[in-house]
């Protein structure tokens, strides 16, 4: 047996974001679930340690005893990643992050997303750059949602974003990784974690992202909109782990023609 298959070479280094170590490379959202019980069960099944939330107005005078998401997804157990979903300007995104920081007792890791329009939910890069700069200056640790443009990804990294998160396809589309070559280019240049955020539809999409060499995958709808979200969460956990292992193992080269698996020597016919 060669050394290549030994136990020591089967160990992966953990994901590190802003100096904190994570065993799971799957990050999940908490939107679109039927109720908080389903949210909790799916997130447990996913094994995720970083969980995104949105910041919205509190209901005034309606259901005062209503359970709070943060009672179910406790900041003591999970790294809460507040997002700026629904923001179309840098100003709104910065304001949202400041409220999130106050809400989470000074926690300064945020997912920045500034959207361009409602139909595509594509990132508005101009506004994203403005917001990222302002947030970093204010001490935030920014994980930034962006297009799969390698030049912009590099610029966001150079500005000081702690992770760059290109889309695989539009948010909630489930179309998978539409431009794996761009993701590869982003990965080649990167010195911060690169996570595919948005576009994953099913387990194989998450595996493809990880096989490309991404440091992690962030998803919400692929789990929440599955017929059985808890089972899909478990599938995604496995898919991310499988893709990561396949990346580390290094795939065989693609060849146009066949190559026999059984030896030719010793044939008796």
């Amino acid at each position, binding site marked *: 047996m060669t050394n290549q298959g030994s136990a020591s070479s089967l160990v992966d280094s953990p994901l590190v974001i802003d100096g904190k170590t994570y065993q799971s490379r799957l990050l999940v959202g908490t939107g679109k679930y039927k109720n908080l019980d389903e949210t909790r069960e799916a997130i447990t099944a996913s094994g995720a340690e970083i969980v995104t939330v949105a910041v919205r*107005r509190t209901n*005034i005078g309606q259901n005062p005893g209503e359970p709070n998401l943060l009672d179910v997804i406790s900041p003591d157990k999970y790294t809460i990643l507040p997002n700026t979903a629904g923001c179309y300007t840098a100003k709104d995104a910065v304001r949202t992050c400041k409220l999130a920081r106050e809400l989470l007792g000074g926690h300064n890791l945020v997912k920045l997303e500034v959207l361009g329009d409602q139909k595509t939910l594509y990132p508005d890069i101009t506004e994203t750059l403005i917001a990222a700069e302002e947030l970093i200056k204010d001490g935030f640790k920014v994980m930034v949602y962006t297009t799969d443009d390698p030049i912009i990804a590099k610029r966001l990294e150079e500005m000081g974003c702690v992770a760059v998160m290109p889309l695989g396809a539009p948010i909630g589309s489930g179309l998978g990784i539409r431009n794996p070559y761009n993701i590869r280019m982003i990965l080649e240049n990167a010195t911060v974690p690169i996570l595919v955020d948005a576009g994953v539809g099913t387990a194989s999409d998450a595996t493809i992202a990880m096989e490309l060499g991404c440091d992690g995958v962030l998803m919400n709808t692929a789990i929440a909109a599955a017929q059985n979200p808890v089972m899909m969460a478990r599938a995604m956990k496995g898919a991310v782990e499988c893709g990561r292992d396949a990346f580390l193992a290094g795939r065989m080269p693609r060849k146009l023609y066949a190559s026999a698996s059984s030896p030719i020597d010793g044939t008796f016919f």
Partner: protein
Amino acid sequence: MDVILNGEPKTIKSDSSILDLIQLLDLGDARIAVELNLEIVPRSEHSTIMLKAGDTLEIVHAIGGG
């Protein structure tokens, strides 16, 4: 006096602090954040900052999102 709370007019007693308003809304123990006239109000200042007529407040919390 009237203030604007989460986009809606709300009548409250004069001499109300932010904490008084939070308690009036039954949000005393909730995980919330408060913004007054576009400025974040740290939790430690909720009891000392008094509201004025015409103030605009946002009270937010975390909900499900991606």
